[in-house]
């Protein structure tokens, strides 16, 4: 039996370069050698050499002369073929003697690992940090620093990839199309900055009472539906009467037989019932419409009547559950308002009669958008004492000016709203009790912030469309703008000449100063000194040739830029530039001080979020939509809160400079009230994430107890223990199994067998080529089975299959690491993982280095990783020491 096709083949095809390729195709000096243990020779001799030798060369392939050392790409490629054909079960051929399962699994395990080492050696960047362009988020951050507002940059490629950080220079490409996009985005950004500037003094306020028009609309709907129901009943009776006629009995029976799956066959096919009238006579377009109005819509009328009876709807409005008519959402718009910063205020209250999980609202842009929202808020106000929620928003020159307010999770993926409605209907017989009451929505323009550096630079020439500026003034302003845009560097005189010529040309042809200025500035934002993080040697000191030897350290300005793009994903601010100019960054204490300042700044989110998202592979959280029927309260709000927990926990540990080990085990969590509620933690109310002490015995605390991490190891329906186990090995234990292979037949639960997940997975380990990885991965995944797909604690699981029934079983988390210690349950597993904090620290250091230096870690980087681990170990693995060790290193400070 062959279960697996050549699934390991694809994964190891990763980076083994073709032999004629570049310099890097040979390992760095002193790199650990990629050598297979000589003990495997016996297996190769016994099972391979007879056919694959100098004389026979079956399949034009020799193994007898294959070196055990994978020193170059050609050898590695050949070993990959060996691995592939063994994995595929093709070799040795079925009619030949087979190696023992254990020996084969061990050999495959070793070979896969050796290939990984070989690949790492061949990919070693030798510590060179190559110039790179800004990635998408850095580009947006940089424009924000320049103009004081965040542009939309969705059109640009995201720059994230499966196997690298978005800081990896070699993957940050540039093309003609992209240049044109930068030009366009630059024009849009400048136009927006101008619009904001021109409206600096504009005052705008608006308030909408939430009850406006609501009762009237609902009452009108009730009237229409009542009428519709009456017409429907008249039609229904007429059809029933026709169907009941004795002479029609045969026709009706035939119809019912033909449409045995169709409920209410006689109405759907009224035309087959002689004498039945057309629904058109009663005002319906067809039978489907008649049934929809007369039954579906009618069923909601009691709920509408209830809504009408609520006195609170005279002074505000209760929000209702989406899809189910009354008022699907509350929307208001700010049409015609100019670009700028605004605050929206909601006066709201929550009912004390409803499930606490429902006392949250979602706020967002674009009234038609069903899934995503911009922010979510706990509603703590009561009808007696409503609260006011303030939400800052930004309006761009174009884009939606409509906003919605709704109860959380009531406009999610299809299953959620009906499910929620159903839960409420069971409770009250009519529909869900009303949870959130809205009094009014108010918006107000915020006073303009002080001009951002880019706008300051051109303040003297901004003028208006008709303004005439002298060439001297213009040149001065353009130079100042370039200095800001180019992170402290002056443009060349030749570039300024060109810019002035472009300005003059456009001024002449359009007759508009602003248009000409916009075009000129936009070009600056598409030029290489803006788009590339370039690190030339201090001007004139070293000739370009010498730099190829990587002899020099970074200049102070370049170091400041590298530091701020690492920790903020944004350019240095004035203080950092001043510190650089004073030479403070070349002094370890001065550098540490600035590093700490950057880490304490809110802009550090520009490191925390993208780094964690990519390091922990959190894109998986968005791979699957969660089944609303199974997990009605793991809605978009809960998912977003869960995602934020990962970032906020890290931010908290960083702020308090706590141990990285607290990501493995902790006695507190950092949650907001929505997530506390999801985890069943009492005593947390209101918005905002904060540390909360956990009750004894709680499974929460640390990454493994986080809903986001657990949900990533699922497919939105069921848990995926293999995914979870592999993630733990990769991210927590720094002991990655070979990369996720493609071509694996997934564990579809399609076998017509009612067996447990563990039984199903264990079947995999019968094949040695599968066992070589799964014996390491699966036990850890099983240890996490007490968490369901949405991260809730459970003690049993079940499997259901139509026609077979349902099997329910108790979760058995006990297991053991491969060739390692045993654990009885999740808590013991967590302790064992926590005991390996140093391995985790090493993995973290490696990721940090790759992110900061923009290349994958090779042997050359090992000493720095050692240093980072040692430095932080000496201080109990406090998070900031990893950063300090990295930032203070020669590698970080040189080209």
């Amino acid at each position, binding site marked *: 039996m062959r279960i697996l*096709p*050549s699934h390991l*083949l*694809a*994964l190891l*095809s990763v*980076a083994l*370069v*073709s032999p004629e*390729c*570049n310099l*890097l*195709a040979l390992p760095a000096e002193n790199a650990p050698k990629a050598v297979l243990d000589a003990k495997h020779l016996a297996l190769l001799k016994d099972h391979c050499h007879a056919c694959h030798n100098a004389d026979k060369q079956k399949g034009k392939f020799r193994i007898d002369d294959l070196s055990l050392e994978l020193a170059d790409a050609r050898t590695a490629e050949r070993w990959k073929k060996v691995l592939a054909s063994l994995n595929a079960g093709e070799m040795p051929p079925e009619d030949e003697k087979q190696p023992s399962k254990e020996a084969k699994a061990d050999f495959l395990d070793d070979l896969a690992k050796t290939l990984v080492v070989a690949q790492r050696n*061949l990919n070693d960047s030798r510590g*060179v940090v190559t*110039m*790179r362009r800004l990635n998408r988020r850095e580009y947006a951050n940089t424009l924000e620093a320049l103009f004081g507002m965040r542009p939309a940059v969705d059109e640009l*490629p995201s720059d994230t*990839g*499966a*196997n*690298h950080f978005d800081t990896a220079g*070699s993957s940050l*490409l*540039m*093309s*003609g*199309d992209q240049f044109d996009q930068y*030009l366009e985005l630059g024009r849009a950004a400048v136009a927006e900055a101008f619009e904001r500037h021109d409206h600096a003094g504009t005052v705008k306020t608006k308030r909408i009472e939430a009850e406006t028009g609501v009762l009237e609309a609902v009452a009108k709907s009730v009237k229409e539906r009542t009428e519709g129901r009456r017409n429907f009943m008249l039609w229904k009776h007429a059809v029933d009467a026709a169907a009941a006629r004795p002479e029609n009995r045969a026709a009706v029976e035939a119809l019912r037989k033909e449409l045995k799956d169709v409920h209410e066959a006689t109405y759907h096919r009224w035309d087959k019932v002689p004498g039945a009238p057309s629904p058109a006579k009663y005002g319906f377009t067809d039978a489907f419409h008649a049934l929809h109005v007369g039954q579906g819509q009618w069923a909601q009328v009691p709920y509408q009547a209830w809504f009408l009876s609520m006195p609170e709807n005279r002074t505000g409005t209760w929000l209702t559950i989406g899809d189910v008519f009354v008022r699907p959402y509350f929307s208001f718009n700010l049409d015609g308002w100019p670009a700028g910063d605004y605050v929206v205020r909601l006066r709201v209250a929550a009912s004390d009669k409803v499930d606490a999980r429902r006392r949250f609202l979602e706020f967002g842009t674009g009234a038609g958008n069903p899934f995503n929202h911009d922010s979510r808020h706990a509603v703590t106000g009561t009808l007696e004492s409503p609260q006011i929620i303030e939400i800052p928003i930004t309006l761009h020159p174009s884009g939606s000016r409509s906003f919605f307010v709704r109860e959380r999770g009531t406009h999610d993926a299809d299953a959620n709203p009906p499910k929620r409605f159903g839960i409420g209907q069971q409770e009250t017989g009519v529909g869900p009790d009303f949870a959130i009451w809205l009094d009014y929505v108010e918006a107000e323009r915020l006073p303009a912030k002080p001009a951002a550096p880019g706008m300051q630079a051109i303040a003297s020439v901004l003028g208006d469309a008709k303004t005439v500026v002298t060439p001297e003034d213009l040149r001065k302003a353009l130079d100042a703008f370039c200095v800001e845009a180019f992170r402290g560097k002056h443009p*060349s005189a*030749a570039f300024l000449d*060109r*810019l002035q*010529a*472009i300005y003059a*040309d*456009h001024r002449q042809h359009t007759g508009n100063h602003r248009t000409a200025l916009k075009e000129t500035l936009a070009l600056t934002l*598409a*030029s*290489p000194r803006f788009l*590339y993080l*370039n*690190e*030339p*040697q201090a*001007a004139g000191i070293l000739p*370009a040739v010498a*730099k190829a030897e990587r002899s020099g350290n970074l200049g102070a300005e370049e170091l400041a830029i590298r530091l701020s793009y690492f920790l903020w994903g944004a350019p240095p601010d004035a203080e950092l530039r001043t510190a650089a100019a004073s030479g403070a960054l070349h002094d370890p204490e001065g550098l540490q001080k600035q590093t700490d300042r950057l880490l304490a700044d809110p802009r550090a989110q520009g490191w925390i979020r993208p780094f964690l998202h990519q390091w922990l592979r959190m894109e998986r959280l968005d*791979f*699957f939509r969660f089944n609303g029927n199974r997990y009605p309260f793991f809605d978009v709000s809960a998912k977003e809160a869960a995602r934020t927990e990962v970032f906020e926990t890290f931010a908290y540990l960083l702020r308090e400079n706590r141990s990285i080990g607290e990501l493995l085990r902790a006695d507190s969590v950092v949650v907001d009230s929505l997530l506390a509620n999801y985890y069943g933690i009492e005593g947390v109310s209101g918005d905002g994430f904060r540390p909360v002490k956990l009750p004894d015995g709680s499974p929460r605390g640390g990454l493994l107890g986080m809903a986001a991490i657990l949900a990533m190891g699922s497919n939105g329906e069921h848990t995926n223990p293999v995914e979870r186990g592999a993630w733990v090995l990769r991210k927590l234990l720094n002991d990655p199994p070979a*990369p*996720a292979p*493609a*071509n*694996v037949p*997934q564990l*579809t639960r*399609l076998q017509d067998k009612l067996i447990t997940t563990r039984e199903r997975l264990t079947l995999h380990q019968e094949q040695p080529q599968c066992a070589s990885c799964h014996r390491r991965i699966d036990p850890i995944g099983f240890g996490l089975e007490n968490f369901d797909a949405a991260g809730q604690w459970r003690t049993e699981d079940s499997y259901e299959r139509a026609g077979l029934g349902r099997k329910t079983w108790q979760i058995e988390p006990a297991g053991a690491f491969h060739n390692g210690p045993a654990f009885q349950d999740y808590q013991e597993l967590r302790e064992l993982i926590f005991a390996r904090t140093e391995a985790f620290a090493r993995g973290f250091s490696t990721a940090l280095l790759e992110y900061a230096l923009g290349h*994958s870690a090779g042997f050359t980087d090992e000493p720095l990783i050692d240093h980072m681990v040692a430095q932080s170990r000496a201080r109990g693995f406090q998070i900031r020491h990893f950063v300090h060790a990295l930032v203070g290193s020669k590698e970080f400070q040189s*080209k």
Partner: protein
Amino acid sequence: MNTRRQFLRSSTALIALPFLESFGFRRFAAAAAPATPPKRLIFLGMGYGVTKETWYPDVKQTGSDYVLPPGLAPLARHKADFTVIQGLSNRYSEDAHTGSTFWLTGANSHEGGASFRNTISADQVAAAAFGKETRFASLQLNGSDKDLSGPGHGTGLSLAWDNRGKPIAGLNSPLALFHRLFSPEQLPLDQLRLRMAQKRSLLDAVLTEAQDLQRGLAKNDIEKLDEYFQGIREIEQRLAKDETWQSAPKPTAPLAQPPDNRSGTDEIRLMYDLMVAALQTDSTRVLTFRLPIASLLTSLGVKVAAHDMSHYSPGERMEASQKRDAAHTELLAHLLDKLKGVPQPDGSRLFDHTTVVFGSNLSHVHTLTNCPTLIAGGGAGIQLGQHLVVSKDTPLCNAWLSLLQGSGVPVERHGDSSGPLKELFA
């Protein structure tokens, strides 16, 4: 303009001189149709793979005598005019969410230690050979899904990658394609010329700046900056081509302007009709279309999310996958009908000179072997009406090589090809 050309020539050896014979070069589609109809190529990439159980024919039935599986059933009327091949794959492909990034390139993404790289796609090889004759060397089309470069298709701006392995942007709606093909330029000629001149002075300015920056850089940084120069050069070439064509009126549209904001099956059908019109008017000879995924499902009334569908197992998800297969096949049958309905000057049909490829780098779920490959049309002279099963792991690029060669493109290899697929010409 001399300074810029000289600069491009001298600044870096890797930049070839833009080839500007163009000012005197006049050969418009409107002028005279060539005696022998030219060869055309269409690549349709679907992203996620197919439903294995119902899309692939039985491997035991090869040749012309095979039973069409349910997933291909809507193509029954064209059965003698297309060939399905099993056994092809891109051996370097490893990312199981990437159905399009390497589909036409066969690149080893990590060669030379890169974390991501790509190489030229087969359509662009053809465009380089055929493109001089037409207003557009090639046209890249995308479905209007919001994020088409996520799981399913993978990284890219369209199916096409240029000769340096950089992504080429595409048009995202039938309406945009219609305007590109048929809408006359709004600006009078002198305005157009002014706009081009202005664009050139923008390029001159950034080149000046790039040149200045380059002086202080180390060798590997200079190589990185070279991508920027290359990007500018692409725009230069595009401008030169635009210049050649700007005084020639666009052809009259052989069909009505499509409505805006159509998605799913409507969008694909409109796009197919326009693709035929593009070939019919000889506006281009090479087209790629990165098909929509999510909006297609929505238009089919499928409630399952796209990625969930790709992880199908019996039940709702598998049904969704099969519905999607059927929709694609029906639309493809429509496209072939259209191509057969366009007569050529010599009395043959457009279909006889066009190659249509439908497929993906993913076969099903997360599997990257046995890439679904369906080829129709007489453009490359392959044997049609066949079900071919080639030996396992035959390079998919062998198929691309065969089609390129069969269409008259003088290439000896493409991607990781080891030679043309002899079976196609048996």
